[in-house]
C-alpha cells in the first residue's frame, strides 16, 4: 500500500507535558482517516505536527515518502480546515479562496474558473462577493473547505471542522463531507472527539488517549474488537467485567468473575490459570428471555431487571446478575400486534450471550 502520510515514532513535548507520545501511523492515499479521542488526548497536536505548525521533539514525519522535517507549513503539500475556520475577514469569499491560488501563481483566467468550481463543489455558487461575516456558520465552514480544496493538496487536515455547528447541520455536513472526500479522492485526516462522527465517516480510526495511540482500525474493528478498556469505554457503551482464569478448555477460557459468576470467553493463549482477565460485552450482544436459547458456546445467567428505559425503537435494560455486577442491555423493540411483551422491573430473566461476543481487553 502506498502511504500519503507516515508518522514514525513521533513524540511532541511541551515542557514537561507529553502531547504526543511515540505515535506511529501510516495513512494511505485517498483514505478518510480519523483521529479520535477526548480533549487533550493529543489528536490536534498530531494534526499540527503534520501541518508543520509544531515540530516533533522526536521522530519523523513523511508526506509522500518525503521527510518533511525541514519544511515549513507553506512548503508542505497539505492544507488545513481550522476549527475556527480562520477565514480572512478582510477578504471576500472569492478572495479567501484565491489566497492560496495567488501563491501558486495561477494564471488569472484559470483562477476565476477554479474559484467558481470550488464554490460549486461546496454548494456556495454566487456567494463569491460576500464577506465571511455575512455568512452563517455552516457556510463559513464550506468556504474554509473550498479554500483548502481548491489547492488540490495531497492531504487535507480537518480540525473538528463541524464542532461549531448545531446537531442537525452537523449530521448533514458529515454525509456531505464524506461524499465530497470520495469525489475529490484526497486523503482526509480528520480530528474529532465525537465517536459517532468518526464511525460515520472514516475508513479507519485512530483512537488516542494521553498522547498515545490506543488502537488503529476500521470503525467495525474499533467497535467490535476494542483492544483496551479505554477504547471499549470511549466508543459506544460497554459492560466491563474482571475476573480470574480458572482453566482453558478446548475453544474456551473458563473465568470466574469478581462477582462470582462463571462465564466462558474465547480462548486466548496469552492467559494461564489464575491470571487476572478483563473483558467487555456490548449491550446489544445480549438476548433476554424467560429461558436461554441453549446454543453451543452460549453463556446463560439469571438476573433481575433493575431498570428499564423505553426509547421507542429500542428498550434499554439494566439487569443485575449478582450483587455487584449489573449489565446494560439494549433490545430492539420487536413488539408486533398482540406479541412480545417487554420485561418489567423486578422480573427475573435469563440473560444469554455467545462467548465470542466477549472481548478480552489489554491494559
Amino acid at each position, binding site marked *: 500500500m502506498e502511504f500519503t502520510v507516515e508518522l514514525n515514532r513521533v513524540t511532541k513535548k511541551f515542557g514537561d507535558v507529553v502531547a504526543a507520545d511515540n505515535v506511529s501511523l501510516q495513512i494511505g492515499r485517498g483514505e478518510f482517516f480519523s483521529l479520535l479521542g477526548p480533549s487533550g488526548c493529543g489528536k490536534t497536536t498530531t494534526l499540527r505536527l503534520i*501541518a508543520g*505548525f509544531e515540530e516533533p521533539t522526536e521522530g519523523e514525519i513523511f508526506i509522500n515518502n518525503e521527510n518533511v522535517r525541514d519544511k*515549513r*507549513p*507553506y512548503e508542505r503539500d*497539505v*492544507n*488545513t480546515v*481550522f476549527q*475556527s475556520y*480562520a*477565514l*480572512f*475577514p*478582510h477578504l471576500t469569499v472569492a478572495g479567501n479562496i484565491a*489566497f*492560496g491560488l495567488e*501563491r*501558486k501563481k495561477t494564471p488569472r483566467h484559470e483562477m476565476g474558473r477554479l474559484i467558481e468550481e470550488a464554490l460549486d463543489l461546496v454548494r456556495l455558487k454566487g456567494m463569491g462577493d460576500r*464577506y465571511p461575516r455575512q455568512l452563517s456558520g455552516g457556510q463559513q465552514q464550506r468556504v474554509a473547505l473550498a*479554500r*483548502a480544496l481548491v*489547492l488540490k493538496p495531497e492531504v487535507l487536515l480537518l480540525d473538528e471542522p463541524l464542532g461549531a455547528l448545531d446537531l442537525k447541520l452537523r449530521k448533514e455536513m458529515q454525509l456531505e463531507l464524506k461524499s465530497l472526500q470520495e469525489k475529490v479522492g484526497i486523503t482526509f485526516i480528520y480530528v474529532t472527539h465525537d465517536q459517532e462522527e468518526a464511525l460515520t465517516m472514516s475508513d479507519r480510526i485512530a483512537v488516542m488517549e494521553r498522547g498515545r495511540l490506543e488502537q488503529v482500525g476500521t470503525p467495525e474493528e474499533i467497535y467490535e474488537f476494542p483492544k483496551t478498556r479505554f477504547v471499549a469505554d470511549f466508543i459506544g457503551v460497554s459492560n466491563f467485567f474482571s475476573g480470574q482464569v480458572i482453566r482453558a478448555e478446548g475453544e474456551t477460557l473458563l473465568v470466574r468473575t469478581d462477582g462470582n459468576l462463571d462465564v466462558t470467553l474465547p480462548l486466548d493463549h496469552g492467559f494461564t490459570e489464575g491470571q487476572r482477565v478483563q473483558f467487555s460485552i456490548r449491550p446489544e450482544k445480549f438476548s433476554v428471555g424467560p429461558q436461554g436459547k441453549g446454543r453451543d458456546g452460549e453463556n446463560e445467567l439469571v438476573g433481575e431487571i433493575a431498570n428499564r428505559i423505553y426509547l421507542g425503537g429500542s428498550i434499554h435494560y439494566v439487569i443485575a446478575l449478582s450483587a455487584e455486577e449489573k449489565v446494560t442491555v439494549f433490545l430492539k423493540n420487536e413488539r408486533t400486534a398482540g406479541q412480545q411483551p417487554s420485561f418489567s422491573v423486578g422480573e427475573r430473566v435469563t440473560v444469554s450471550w455467545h462467548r465470542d461476543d466477549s472481548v478480552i481487553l489489554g491494559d
Partner: protein
Amino acid sequence: MERIGLRIRLLKFFNRHPHTKAFGILLPCMFWIGVFFLLPLVFMATYSFLERALYGGVQLIFTWENYTRFVDPLYLKILLRSFRISFLTTVILLIIGYPMAYRIAMADKRWRNILLFLVVLPFWTSDLIRTYAWMLILRDTGLLNFLLQYLHVIKKPLTLLYTEGAILLGLAYVYLPFMVLPLYASIEKLDRSLLEAAEDLGATPFWRFLKVTVPLTKSGILAGSLLVFIPSVGAFIVPDLLGGAKAMMIGNLVQLQFGPSRNWPFGSAASFILMTIVLLAVFTYLRFAGGKEAMEEAR
C-alpha cells in the same frame, strides 16, 4: 415630603422629554468644549483678520494681510519643511514601531506588560528635559562626538545638533509611544489562527505579513500615524532646541508671533493655515487608506 415630590416630578418630566434629559447630561461637556476650545478658536479666527496693535494685541481694523503675508517663499518653506519632517517622522516611526509592537504583542504574557511599561517609561519626565538631554548628546562637544573621537572614528566633531536630522531624531524619540501603543493594541487583537491559515495556504512570512497582518492591523497603523503626524506638524519644543534657527518649523513660527514678535494676528493666521492643511491631509489620508474598509462597512 416636598423635596421627594419635586424629585418625582422632575424624573417624570425627564421621562416625558428624553431630549431635554440628554441635553442635561451633555451640558457640562458642552460647556467645557465651548469655553476652552471653541471660544479661543473664535477669538483666533477673529484676530487673524485684524491688524496688529503696536505693542501686542489687536486693532479693530479688518484686513486680509495676515493671510496674504503668508504666501511668501520664506513661510512656505517653513510650512513645507514642517510637513516633510512630520511625514518622515511618521514613516520612520512606522518602520521602527511596527516590529517593536509586533514583538511585544507576540511576547510571552508576563513579558508583555514589562515591555509596554518600558515603552511608556520616558513619558514620566517632561519632554523638555528629554530633549535637552539629546542636546547634550548631539552637540559638538557632546557625548556622541566625544565617543567617536575617542574611538578615532572621526577627527573633527560632526555637526549633529541644529540640523533637520536632529529634529527627526528628537521627534521620533518623543512620539515613539504614540506609534507603538495603537499598533500594539491592534496586533494583540489579531487572531493567530489567521496567521497559521495564511502559512498553511502557502504564504511565505513576507507575503503573510503583506496580505494578512498589515490589512488586519490597519486601524492601528492609521491611528498611530495620525497620533504621530498631527502633533509633529505643530511641534515646537523639539525643533526649537534641536533645530535652532536654521530649521524652523511652523510651530516655532506661531510661537514666535505670539511671543517675541507680538504679532498675534499673524500668529493666528498661521495657526489657521496649519490647521486647515492638516485637516485636509488627514481627511485625504483616511479616505485613501481607510476608504475601502469604510465602503465595505457601508454595504
